[in-house]
């Protein structure tokens, strides 16, 4: 169910990179019959075996040539951040239940091997859903048999609670991973907030995203426990200029001014952590904030078009700034109406969130719509599962959200019900590397 037609690749855009160099099976790899381990499933060797091959010079992937192709799993940065936002999400947060550091490291290595396979459209384990002994429970759950990779990306993050004394990580907690302050008006539910580890699965096919999370959860039993998870659909942000801007459930285009993978300088400055930021292990990583934002859509839908547009600061049809014609026209916060009122209200959502009011702080938003059925009161349990990546949440998300929480008239129609904060480590370089190695080395 794609809302947007397949966009044209911009002239001079990066060549899509569809397959892993080592995965010689070619594109459109089906999951069936791939019982060989291949490079992606090769046994992960311990720390220190990281190959010297540098991936720093890889051009960013603009977009895969079709929605079924795989994205590379290995790279300087984790996939699923600047990757052009796929249409579907299954996000999960785990609590670590083992008390043994070695078991946690083993799990991260097993997960990395499985993720390398899954993202390339292969099965979670080497026997697969139907290739093992008939008496054995299959090592893949099977619901993605015959489905292509579908642009699956798997992105891991480590929450503040992991950096306690259980695994000796307290001293490694980055300063930027400071607990978020309490924001006015939020009504956070602890059971669906936080977590020691998160995994974001994005794909063009919800079955593929769910399959990935389900298999990772299964591999983790006894070492981690699912704390909460969230399904999302209809990406609410574009992360590439090759994508059209999608709409959130309020009916407005969302993410027009988002950071895009083509903004190389801004990404360096605003998105990627580096060693000088204070945590060497986070170089090439970034920080993720998640907020589950319930929308009171029934009351929103009864709101006049005029008020809706004034609250947001853009027109609903085109997404243009009020007073302008086109979506990507520049926001002009000084423009006045004939009677001297600002064209874009002082408390309009786009103004409160704009980088120019937050020391040029940008966010790379990657949120999704959600509808979790209905709430028993005849209302849809719906809203936005907001995900934002940034170099330092203290200067970026916290600054923006604090001003929104205090004065955004949109608050009448939304409620933040869950919150997550995660340090997203750098990418996995190759089959000898694993998720979070730089933290545990």
């Amino acid at each position, binding site marked *: 169910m794609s809302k947007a037609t397949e966009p044209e690749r911009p002239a001079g855009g990066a060549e899509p990179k569809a397959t892993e160099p080592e995965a010689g099976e070619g594109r459109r790899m089906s999951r069936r019959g791939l019982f060989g381990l291949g490079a992606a499933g090769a046994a992960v060797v311990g720390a220190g075996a990281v190959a010297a091959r540098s991936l720093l010079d890889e051009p960013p992937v603009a977009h895969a040539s079709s929605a079924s192709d795989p994205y590379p799993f290995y790279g300087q940065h984790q996939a699923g951040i600047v990757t052009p936002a796929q249409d579907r999400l299954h996000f999960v947060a785990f609590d670590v*239940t083992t008390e043994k550091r070695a078991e946690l490291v083993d799990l991260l290595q097993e997960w990395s091997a499985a993720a390398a396979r899954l993202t390339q459209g292969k099965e979670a384990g080497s026997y697969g859903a139907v290739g*093992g*002994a008939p*008496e*054995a*429970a299959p090592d893949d759950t099977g619901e993605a048999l015959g489905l292509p990779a579908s642009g699956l990306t798997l992105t891991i993050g480590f929450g503040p609670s992991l950096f306690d004394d259980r695994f000796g990580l307290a001293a490694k907690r980055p300063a930027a991973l400071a607990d978020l302050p309490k924001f006015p008006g939020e009504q956070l539910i602890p*059971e669906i907030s936080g977590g020691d580890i998160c995994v974001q699965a994005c794909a063009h096919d919800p079955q593929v995203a769910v399959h990935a999370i389900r298999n990772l959860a*299964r591999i983790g*039993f*006894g*070492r981690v*426990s699912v704390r909460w998870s969230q399904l999302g659909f209809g990406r609410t942000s574009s992360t590439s200029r090759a994508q059209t801007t999608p709409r959130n459930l309020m009916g407005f285009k969302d993410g027009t001014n988002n950071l895009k993978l083509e903004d190389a300088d801004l990404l360096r400055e605003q998105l990627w952590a580096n060693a000088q930021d204070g945590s060497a292990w986070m170089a090439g990583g970034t920080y993720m904030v998640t907020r589950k934002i319930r929308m009171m859509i029934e009351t929103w839908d009864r709101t006049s078009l005029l008020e809706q547009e004034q609250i947001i600061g853009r027109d609903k049809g085109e997404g243009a700034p009020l007073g302008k014609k086109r979506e990507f026209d520049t926001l002009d916060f000084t423009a006045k109406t004939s009677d001297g009122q600002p064209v874009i209200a002082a408390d309009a959502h786009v103004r409160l969130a704009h980088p120019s009011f937050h020391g040029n702080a940008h966010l790379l938003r990657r949120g999704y719509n959600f509808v979790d059925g209905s709430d028993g009161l005849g209302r849809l349990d719906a809203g936005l599962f907001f995900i934002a990546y940034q170099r330092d949440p203290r200067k970026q998300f916290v600054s923006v959200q604090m001003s929104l929480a205090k004065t955004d008239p949109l608050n009448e129609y939304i409620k933040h019900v869950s919150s997550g904060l995660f340090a997203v480590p750098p990418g996995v370089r190759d089959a000898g590397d694993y998720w979070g190695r730089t933290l545990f080395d």
Partner: protein
Amino acid sequence: MRTAIHLTFGALALAGLTACGSGAAPAPASSSGPAAPGKIAVAANDTECKVAASEVAAGTTTFAITNGGSKVTEFYVYAPGDRVMAEVENIVPGLTRELIAELPAGAYETACKPGMVGKGIRNPLKVTGEHKKLTADAKLAEAVASYKRYVKSQTDTLLVKTQEFVDAVKAGKIEEAKALYPVSRTYWERIEPVAEIFGDLDPAIDGREADLAEGDEWTGFHKIEKDLWIHKDVSKSGPMADKLIADVKTIVDKANAAELTPLHLANGAKELLDEVATGKITGEEDIWSHTDLWDFAANLQGSKAAVQSLRPVLEERAPDLVKTLDEKFAAAEAALEVHRKGDGWQLHNELSKAELKSLSDAINALGEPISKIAPVVAK
């Protein structure tokens, strides 16, 4: 009078034991050297367990256990790792019960358990003489035989306890029946996978109201549970109680005659954990009495007994798996142990969601390695 029964995991601990158990146990009143043919007398009381022999010949040995104490007792023969070779439960004061054990040569321990709790009063038992080294097939056959001994011991007590429960119901003794309800079910829940082999009998004994289709007749434990806890009236429950004990008798005969295979054991161990995950953790099994944790404990014990029976095979073929199973069983037992209360367990509705989640996590952690037993056994 309610018999206090503690469901202890110590009785079924998989962890390897040192050669000798309780140092406080009195020395066995026995001569050295193999005992003469015939029965070996065991004099048990609340503090002692005198076994008339410490060495027997390989083959069949019969123990005659006399309870001279004031507490109900049990008698076990354990192989290393507390694998039950034979056991007899529910030996009431003043009674003598016999136990027939098939023992190949090796080092064993006997145990009396006054009050039916704890590790018991242990004595070493040496079994000597010729016995052929088991082939792989013979090892599997021994695993099945070992599990069948377990089923026998459980069904013996199931009959006794269900009869007590039925008698209390028919006598209108509601409080006594309520106390006996989770206890009698314990012996049932430990061996339910065997019961499930017999199609209609399992639902007749253990069907829940929620499982019924339009027009189905509802019988068994849960119907009486509703009479006890919801209607608070068992004046019309007599015929239902009679049917329950009749059905239990039928299934006990069938269970003990059943041809089991090693795969039955492996899959049974998994199914018991599935039962815990889907019925007991959710509180759907005993929705009126809330005694789900009794069933939970029994399922876990039954699962462990099946795994134990297979242990010699698993140790040879998948030693790492055995290590994992030991760890995860211990973790699941520890998670449950938190909720012990008096002679039994906390009620399901006394547990918080966080407590239930911790139990659920422990069962998931154990369930995955247990699912790996079947292919090892099938090799």
